[in-house]
């Protein structure tokens, strides 16, 4: 499934539309230094950490989008950076686990092959 379809299905708030790209899994982490080394390529990254470096880490790891959980607030600098790097940033009101589960369930529903991603 691609990012635009994902947020349409889940009704997330779009903070920066960015690139419509493949989402093949979910990754959760709030420490940027951990996400930087352990993040999964093409995953939707669920986090409450919202600052310019979140966008930088997403780009570096090549994750497909940032999903801010718990209605995390964002600043202008982060959105500017997201525009610059064409990164999709969306926001969910639910906590991290519920948000990740909802994305996971949606990906499954549309027959995305998560087991390949999990290997």
């Amino acid at each position: 499934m691609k990012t635009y379809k994902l947020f349409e299905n889940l009704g997330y708030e779009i903070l920066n539309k960015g690139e419509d790209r493949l989402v093949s899994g979910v990754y959760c982490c709030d420490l940027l230094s951990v996400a930087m080394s352990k993040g999964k390529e093409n995953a939707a990254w669920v986090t409450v950490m919202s600052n310019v470096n979140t966008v930088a880490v997403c780009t570096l790891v090549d994750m497909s989008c940032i999903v801010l959980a718990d209605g995390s607030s964002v600043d202008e600098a982060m959105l500017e950076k997201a525009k610059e790097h064409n990164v999709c940033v969306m926001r969910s009101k639910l906590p991290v686990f519920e948000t990740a589960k909802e994305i996971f369930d949606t990906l499954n529903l549309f027959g995305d092959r998560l087991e390949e991603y999990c290997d």
Partner: protein
Amino acid sequence: MLSLSYDLHIHSCLSPCGDNESTPCNIVGMAYVKGLDVIAVTDHNSAKNCPAAVEAAKEFGITVVCGMELTTAEEVHVLCLLPSLEKALELDEYVQKRLIKIKNDPKIFGEQLIMNSADEVSGSVENLLINAADISFCETFELLEGFGGIAIPAHIDKSANSLLSNLGFIPPDSSFKTVEVHRRSLFPDLCQTHGYLSSCRVISNSDAHYLGDINEPENFLHAEENSAEAVIEALKKPCEK
């Protein structure tokens, strides 16, 4: 006692997010123009631009305190100030060994330039400096004590990478006596929520990533003399209120 105007948190072009115009020589020159007595060059997790800053400062007669802004394992920023260049470079070596090793991509994070005292690029740091070091917030204070320096929780009122945003509380066994606050007007409110802070000295620095953001001489501290050792001593003393 001397009253010294200070700005003890300035990033150079070594920090990936620091402007490339912010060379150690330019920082010292700007501090001189502004009339500051003492500044600190504090890049993310590295002191490699301190040698050039110290050299440049000789010409201008201002004091450069060598240091860095350490990113702890919890991604809390802690301002580390050292009594000498040698100690700062020792700390640099200690921290490099404990930093998560990921290559910097200058296109995403920015360049990490090392400059010499002639204001020329003499090298660059390959691994990304804004990463977390495997040093916990609590152990940082004792670590700096061992180096004869001081650790100061940085911009505790900021919503990213601060003691209050990342840990959310002040560890009960804390012993620090000085904190850095970005917006001083918020400090009374912070003291209401975190009683420990009432006993702390507050300093305010620019955290400048651009030359123009370096503070005017509007903040003062009192020290026995204008030297790195005396400034650190002054910040270590219990706060008299």
